[in-house]
């Protein structure tokens, strides 16, 4: 249980995107079936016949980055309220029926999407379709349930953010890096907004975004696509559609110089978070290789214990105990490259920052070696196979790309794009984006953890 970069941990949290979502081969292409219902619901089906199970996910194009200041967190609160009953199924029925059918399910809200899922033995897929299509149109928003659930979400915020020093740093960091841009707002919402959120706000949000034309149904598992489509027509197909008006894509505020902040919190271990504005796939009609070069760069720094961060910062220089990177090429609004780490005992966050900047300098001045590039690419080839082991993840990839960028086929080209990246391209993106005027750095300033517990016991 050694220190692991917080960004690596965050990569498995459902509030953030996975870090290196290297992906799909041509074999995947053959088995994705695509369909569209008359009411605008998009359907994607990924067959996987290894086990008699199915995963059903319904994705809505709504999430933290759609929210204006004042009602931040509303998408996530609405996600919670979606379990509170409809005109057909009172509170608690949804979960009871899924459970009775041997299923499990949950939901997650991201910056750019909200998704609901059930995992079931394959013959029970219809149960999911009945229930999900019902709450797509018939949700009851009840004042008493809402007041209790708002308290639950506030407790969730305490658990995830208020009492977690690194999460506090991350939240304040993103606000500084993105200022008034939606990516500067926390998915779970500011506490002040949660406290004054009202039922009426939720009603409007639900009416505006929960409609077939704004949703994607993803089914993965041991299914016959034609039967799935027929069952979807019988259920989701009967949900009336309304037009969706999507907010404009706001520009990222210009940054003209390094930005620094320090966050005090009770903690034992110092922490540093650094970031740079970079492009994402959505930005890149011309230089479309750049996001993929950034992903490879991320692997060069942090793709295992042979990669530069572990080898140089932890193993050789002993300046860090953990260091990691995070970059999502498929963000809806903007790309951002994050680096985080903990200084080793006796080292400061300033020394850690200097050591990281030296690694960045090296990326700008010498091409990465063929051996390093080969290693990152070998890992991508292998992970293309490994990820086929998870039915849920196969569905997740399709849903993510279709909900954020309207194009699940990006998964198909993803590996190929990564394999095409050259050492020169990695150097080029490092030079172009990793400079001081584009940098934001936050440090955790640990305050004593005053506790009656004896440390070290």
């Amino acid at each position: 249980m050694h220190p692991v970069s917080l960004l690596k941990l965050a990569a498995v949290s459902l509030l953030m995107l996975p870090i290196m979502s290297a992906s799909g081969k041509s074999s995947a292409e053959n088995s994705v079936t695509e369909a569209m219902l008359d009411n605008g619901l998009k359907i994607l089906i990924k067959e996987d016949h290894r086990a008699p199970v199915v995963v059903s996910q319904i994705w809505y194009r709504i999430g933290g980055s759609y929210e204006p200041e004042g009602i931040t967190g509303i998408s996530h609160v609405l996600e919670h309220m979606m379990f509170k009953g409809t005109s057909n199924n009172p509170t608690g029925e949804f979960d009871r029926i899924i459970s009775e059918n041997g299923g499990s399910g949950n939901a997650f809200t991201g910056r750019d999407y909200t998704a609901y899922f059930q995992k079931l033995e394959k013959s029970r897929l219809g149960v999911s379709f009945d229930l999900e299509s019902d709450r797509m149109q018939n949700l009851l928003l009840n004042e008493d349930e809402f007041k209790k659930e708002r308290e639950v979400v506030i407790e969730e915020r305490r658990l995830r953010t208020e009492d977690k020093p690194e999460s506090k740093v991350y939240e304040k960091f993103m606000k500084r890096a993105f200022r008034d841009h939606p990516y500067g707002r926390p998915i779970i919402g500011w506490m002040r907004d949660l406290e004054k959120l009202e039922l009426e706000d939720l009603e409007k949000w639900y009416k505006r975004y929960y409609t077939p034309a704004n949703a994607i149904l993803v089914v993965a598992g041991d299914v016959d696509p034609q039967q799935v489509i027929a069952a979807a027509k019988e259920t989701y197909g009967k949900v009336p559609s309304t037009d969706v008006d999507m907010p404009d894509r706001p520009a990222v505020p210009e940054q003209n110089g390094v930005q620094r902040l320090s966050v005090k919190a009770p903690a034992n271990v110092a922490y540093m978070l650094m970031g740079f504005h970079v492009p994402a796939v959505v930005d890149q009609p011309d230089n479309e290789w750049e996001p993929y070069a950034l992903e490879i760069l991320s692997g060069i720094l942090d793709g295992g214990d042979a990669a530069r961060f572990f080898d140089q910062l932890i193993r050789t220089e002993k300046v860090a105990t953990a260091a990691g990177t995070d970059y999502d090429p498929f963000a809806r609004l903007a790309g951002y490259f994050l680096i985080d780490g903990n200084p080793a005992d006796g080292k400061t966050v300033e020394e850690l920052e200097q050591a990281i900047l030296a690694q960045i300098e090296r990326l700008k001045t010498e091409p990465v070696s063929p051996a390093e590039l080969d290693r990152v690419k070998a890992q991508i080839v292998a992970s293309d196979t490994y990820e086929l082991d998870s039915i849920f993840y196969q569905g997740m990839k399709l849903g993510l790309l279709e909900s954020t960028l309207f194009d699940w086929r990006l998964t198909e080209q993803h590996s190929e794009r990564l394999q095409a990246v050259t050492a020169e391209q990695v150097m080029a993106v490092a030079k172009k984006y990793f400079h001081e005027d584009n940098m934001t750095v936050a440090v955790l300033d640990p305050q004593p953890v005053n506790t009656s517990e004896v440390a070290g016991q």
Partner: protein
Amino acid sequence: MKRNYLICLLLLMPGQAIASPDVHHWLTDNGARVYFIETHALPMVDMRLVFDAAGARDPAGRNGLAMLTNDMLLDGTGELDSKAVAEGFENKGAEISTSSLRDMAIVSLRTLSDPRYLEPVSNLLAQLVADPSFPQESLDRERSRALQALDHALQNPGTVAKRKLFSKLYAGHPYANFAIGTREGLKAITRQDLVDFHRRYYTADNLVIALVGDLDMAQAKKLANRISGKLGKGKRAELLPQVPAIAADETRVDFPSTQSHIMLAHIAVKRSDPRVFALKVGNHALGGGGFQSRLMDEIREKRGLSYGAHSYFLPMQQKGPYLASLQTKNKQVDEALTVTRDVIREFIDKGPSPEEVEMAKKNITGGFPLTIDSNKKMVGTLAMMGFYDLPVDYLDTYIDNINAVSREQVIKAMKSTLSMDGMVTVVVGGK
């Protein structure tokens, strides 16, 4: 109405017989226990090695030694230093990791099955497990990282609560020890300690090899022999001491957090205890069944007191705990604690309703295919079966074992396992 009709129809369908995968079991030439599932759907192999060499085996004054030994297996062997080892796996796209719990010291490997990958990667693993070099420089680095990980753990109120809870529940027993150890223990560990610990516990007789993937029987046998072949035969670790019963206790720890973490626990059962199936069904209704459980319903759904409220049984070689946990803002601690205790007390007294038993059984049996729907899940299940000496037909009989549980058995199992007189409470948080 149509909706309900459809669901009823599905429920009326006769339960489909779910074929569980064939589990093959044998011993390697030098005595390691192997559990294997053959599946060629994907060109990959998952392997999990489990040694009885985890936190519960830490010698006195050396808390953290088992974890450091496990972790440092990957820090070099023969001519290879830690970077060369990392390259040996990562250049081939293989994923290697170690982890150390209370009972199990684990090494996990995932690799492509093509011999160009599998051969070099499994050879390297075999050499590392049998003959790690434990360089002093690596020990210094990993010790320093472990100390910081310990500091990090202790800045989290949930982790502080759990450590406190285990120290109370298992006072004087090896299960009180956390894998990551203590500051004093970590500081005292020497290279010779690692060497001695490795020699004692990293042996074929003390090893379970779980294998899942794209191999036929002959290949699997060859691979298992390769992995264990360089290990000494050794002997299986002796059984851990019995866990003594303890009396109820409550501890409050001040902590600068906005929420308090509340945990209640009781010494419960061994993995070999025949009551585990009844307790699994019972806990589903009490705290393990998500929104179908009473704890979640009373704490979150009815009162909005906490984001999560769960409980579980953790059977181990010796009696593992029953553990219930939730978190709430500091000023609501007393209310939340009262509700939690009332729910557990009433459940021990009266047990689940017949409907709750039915719901639990339907969910557990209906969801069984989901617990083995990937190579990763299967290899974890095999490792657990092997480590705890469960029968080879464990998967084949699982659904029948759950279906055979009656309400009376649940009530009896709960009453004979738990009582409020043995419930240990820990609350960590602010005022």
